[in-house]
């Protein structure tokens, strides 16, 4: 292998990594189903990706009573959350260990929250849908609107993977 080819390979590897990173999210944006979720938000900054709106979707909090699994099968586990449409928004329908065969569902990491009686009454789910990046300075406006009446997030979903595509005041 000549020096030229080896150099070409060293340059191509980073480019391939960048392209590979885009496959899943881009496919979701293109082919995923669009759902609308209820949300709250505030406005911090990340050093490398800039300003963002930190989103907390209503579906990220699930009462324990909705889940039939024992607690050791929930805490720190990746589970599937099936969603159903109720009015404008999608809400939690049920939680399962197996990938649902149909319907809209998201994969998320579960965390149990304990109340003062040491009972797990609420479950927090991390869908990795907690950030929406925006132009510098434009977050304050969104944040104020969020305090007044909440926000709605639009998410594209494909095979349990979601990409936030829009955030807007109600």
């Amino acid at each position, binding site marked *: 292998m000549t020096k030229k080819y*080896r*150099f070409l390979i060293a*340059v191509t590897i*980073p480019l391939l990594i960048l392209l590979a990173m885009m496959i899943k999210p881009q496919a979701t944006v293109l082919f995923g189903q669009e759902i609308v979720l209820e949300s709250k938000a505030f406005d911090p900054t990340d050093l*490398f*990706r800039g300003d963002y709106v930190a989103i907390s979707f209503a579906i990220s909090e699930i009462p324990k009573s909705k889940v039939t699994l024992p607690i050791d099968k929930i805490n720190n586990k990746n589970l599937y959350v099936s969603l159903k449409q109720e009015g404008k928004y999608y809400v939690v329908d049920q939680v399962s260990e197996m990938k649902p065969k149909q319907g809209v569902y998201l994969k998320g990491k579960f965390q149990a929250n304990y109340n003062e009686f040491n009972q797990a009454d609420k479950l927090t789910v991390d869908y990795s849908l907690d950030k929406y990046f925006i132009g510098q300075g434009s977050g304050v406006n969104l944040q104020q609107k969020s305090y007044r009446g909440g926000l709605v997030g639009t998410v594209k979903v494909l095979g349990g993977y979601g990409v936030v595509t829009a955030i807007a005041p109600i």
Partner: protein
Amino acid sequence: MKRQISKANFSLVSTELENYESNGLITGEQKNDILEIYDVKGGLNFIRVVVTIGALLVGLGILSFIASNWDGISNLFKLVIIFGVFGGVNLAGYILSENYSKTGRSMIYLGTLVYGAGIFLIGQMYNFGGDFPTAFLLWSLGVVPMAFLLKDKYLMLFANLLFGIYLNASFDQGFPYAALVGIPVVYLAFNYFERSRLLLFFANLTALSFIFQMTLRYEVKGLYVALLFFVIGLMMYGIKHSVEPDIFRVQGNILLGVTGLILTFPDLWNIVVSTQSTRLISILFAVAFVTLLFFLIRKGSIISLIFVCVIIFRYYTDTFAFLPKSLFFIVGGLLLLGFGFYFERMMKTSKGGTLA
């Protein structure tokens, strides 16, 4: 091949040789012959520093541009710019490497920063959630091939640092399996890059922080973590081997000093002894630790001397119970004075003992 030594060492050797010559120990010819053995190692090259800092500034500017999320141009166009600039600077780097090697190399450096900007742009475009530590793993992964190809130890150091950031930030993620490959790679790199001491130093840091992350992940108690690293520090300092022992000794010495200091805090010990006896056991440990430090100082360890000073300061500010503290310090000081006097007298009587 000539022996490579630093400018400072060369000037020391030549002044000493001039001294020997003027004393008549060696002739002028012998002096020149000896000086001929050496070759002064190149220090910092000014041009290289200038172009590297230039590349660094442009790269940081691009990273910052991405973070600004300026909506004057679309994300897709930004992505095209990133790909274009990445390709362009690498091509420039390749072409310039023939005749302008320093500028060429700085173009390659710029390319690695542009690549990082690309990663964060994609993270931003698709609103990836969480803290995104994977970004640093992918960044590191993309830098390694070029570092190995060009045998550039600074690129490798950069990749190692990025990998270290990933390891330390991935605590609440899944198990960092990448470390099982990454840590051997950073040591392999040390061997491959003409055994650069710089790379070994950071490879050790990466390995240590991996062990630390593991103790956090499996919720090991603070006492055992401190003891584990104390023992690792002792081993790094004490085990005799031929692979850059100086690096291991310095790192081991600092590690055992810091962890030893932590172990002198009583609260840590309440998992092995009752709460009333934690103070006693921590003080027993402190006495043993200071004895060890004195033993190391005798072997010429200046770092240990610093830690003895820190320990004294730590106990002086520890309590406002002045009377017991006064007694403790006076007794301790008198013991040391006594030992010192005893050793000095012993050396005098035995005429040239080896104690120093």
